Every structure is written in structure tokens, then in C-alpha cells.
């Protein structure tokens, strides 16, 4: 018996895949991507809900004591010591110039990072990991979203009627915070 008669069936599949590869239109939108979901960490601060991409999250810790930095503006809550390293803590609502009408039971610190920047965000205890389908994301931001919030929003997702969770653009937030630092130093 010739060697090629002992086929395990892969040959046909390989041939089919090669044919499909040859016919593939690279300029078209990949069909598979439409169903790809993204992992996000969602959290609440007072009545507002936010999310950050899972890849930007380093860890979530119980909110430790925060030491104020003398002279810094209010949107910088201060610093914490975590694993013997100093981490700055940003007041997200303050940074976004949003107001809170409900009390917030701040209990968690979400530590996010992007590039060289690491920042802690104080959140309430309703913090959870979610899988968001890209179909559920809205790149069209609600007109009620304040301009400054829009600047730092990647997308929104309605979690109840009329209320959206804001997927934050962590890179922009950290870049702009750093730019502000540079401007202040110069």
C-alpha cells in the first residue's frame, strides 16, 4: 500500500483551508470579529457606572489609607503604599468634572496601568468582571454626556434604560494627567 493511502483525513481539510485562504478578501471586515467579546472591569462610583478594559487592570485591592500630597489639586486624592511602592490615586469624578448626587461607599481601589503610568481609582464595592460583546458597545456617545467625559470615553453600553456604563479610555486619562504634570513643571 502506498504511503499516501494511509491518510488521516487532514489532507482534505488542508486543501479546503488553502482554497479558502486563496479566496479570502483581506479588505473585507473579518466576520469572526463581530462576535468577539472584550473583558472589562465595571465599577460604580455613587450613581455613575464605569468600566475599564481588562488589559488595563493590574489589580483590585481594598481601599487603603490614602495620604494627601501637599499642594496638589483635588482630583489627585493622594498616594498609597502598595507592595512597598508608591501609587498615585486619582479622583475619577473630580478628573471628569462629574458630580455625585448619591453617597458613595468607597471600598475598593482599582489599580490600572498603561505604559509607564500606574494609577489607583477609588470605587465602590460593586466591582465585577464582565464580558462585553462588541455588538453591545455603542461608539455613538449619548448627547447628554458632558464634553469632558466624552474626551475620555471609548464607548458606552446601556446597563438599564437611560443609563449607560462608560468604558473609559485609560490611555488618554493617564497621558493627559502626565501632560498636565509636564506643563506644571515647565
Amino acid at each position, binding site marked *: 500500500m502506498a504511503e499516501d493511502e494511509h491518510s488521516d483525513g487532514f489532507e482534505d481539510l488542508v486543501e479546503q483551508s488553502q482554497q479558502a485562504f486563496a479566496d479570502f478578501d483581506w479588505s473585507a471586515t473579518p466576520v469572526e470579529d463581530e462576535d468577539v467579546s472584550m473583558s472589562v472591569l465595571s465599577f460604580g462610583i455613587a450613581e455613575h457606572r464605569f468600566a475599564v478594559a481588562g488589559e488595563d487592570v493590574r489589580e483590585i485591592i481594598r481601599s487603603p489609607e490614602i*495620604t*494627601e*500630597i*501637599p*499642594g*496638589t*489639586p483635588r482630583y*489627585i486624592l493622594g*498616594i498609597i*503604599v502598595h507592595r*512597598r*511602592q*508608591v*501609587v*498615585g490615586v*486619582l479622583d475619577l469624578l473630580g478628573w471628569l468634572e462629574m458630580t455625585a448626587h448619591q453617597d458613595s461607599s468607597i471600598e475598593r481601589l482599582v489599580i490600572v496601568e498603561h505604559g509607564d*503610568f*500606574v*494609577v489607583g481609582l477609588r470605587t465602590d464595592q460593586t466591582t465585577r468582571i464582565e464580558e462585553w460583546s462588541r455588538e453591545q458597545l455603542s461608539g455613538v456617545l449619548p448627547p447628554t454626556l458632558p464634553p469632558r467625559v466624552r474626551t475620555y470615553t471609548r464607548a458606552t453600553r446601556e446597563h438599564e434604560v437611560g443609563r449607560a456604563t462608560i468604558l473609559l479610555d485609560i490611555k488618554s486619562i*493617564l497621558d493627559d*494627567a*502626565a501632560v*498636565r*504634570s509636564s*506643563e*506644571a*513643571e515647565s
Partner: protein
Amino acid sequence: LSQAATNSAIDVVCARMGRLKVAISLSSVQSILTRDEAVGLRLLDPSEELRTTLEPNLHVALLTDLSGPPTALCVGQVYASERWTSKRLRPLPRWATAHLSPLLHPACALGEGDDIIWLLNVRRAPRVLGAR
């Protein structure tokens, strides 16, 4: 040179200034005096700049290498004298130091229980506080 910098150490005194803990390099200080001993000195008070309070009649640091009248910086209650290397220090996050007081270096040290000890930039005190 980098090896020398890595291994260099400085002598500091630590003080409680209201709710803050601060460290002062002794290289910028001629001596530490009690407030009562500081008669005739020009006194600089950093409490407003650092948004803290300063109890009266505690310690002052007599500054060196200054022209003009003898000048001392009020530093609160001195509680320790130590020798530090760079290993003792932690840099502050750069993004968070935008408006850091010029009286502070952009780093801190960790005390017992990981409390923060701010590094006072004594050499800047006359310029920052002198006009007040």
C-alpha cells in the same frame, strides 16, 4: 560615579509637622535648635505652604550657606536621626506631582507601618517662604 551615587548615604532628621512627617537632610542644616534657642533668627514657617499645622515652641533647623541674616526653618517635633541610602526612598508618581509644593522633593520615604515621610527641600525654603 553611578556606583558612588547608589551607595551614597545622607544623614537626616525626621520630624512631625502636624499631620505630616518630614525628613530634612542635615547637609543643609547647621544645627537643630529648640524654638527657645532660636532668639534673633529669622524664622521661616512652612506650615501654610504644606497645608499643615505647626505647634509652637518645638524645633527649628538653622540653615547653612545663606547670605543675609541667620535663618531657621520651623520643622515641628524632631523624633529621629537616621542615615539613609537611596534604597530608603520611593519616587512619587510623576503624573501626580504636577502641583507638588516646591518645598518637597518628588520622592518620599516609608516609615514604620509604611506611613509616608516627605522629603523637605530645605535649600528652597528661603526663596519659597522668604517673601511671606
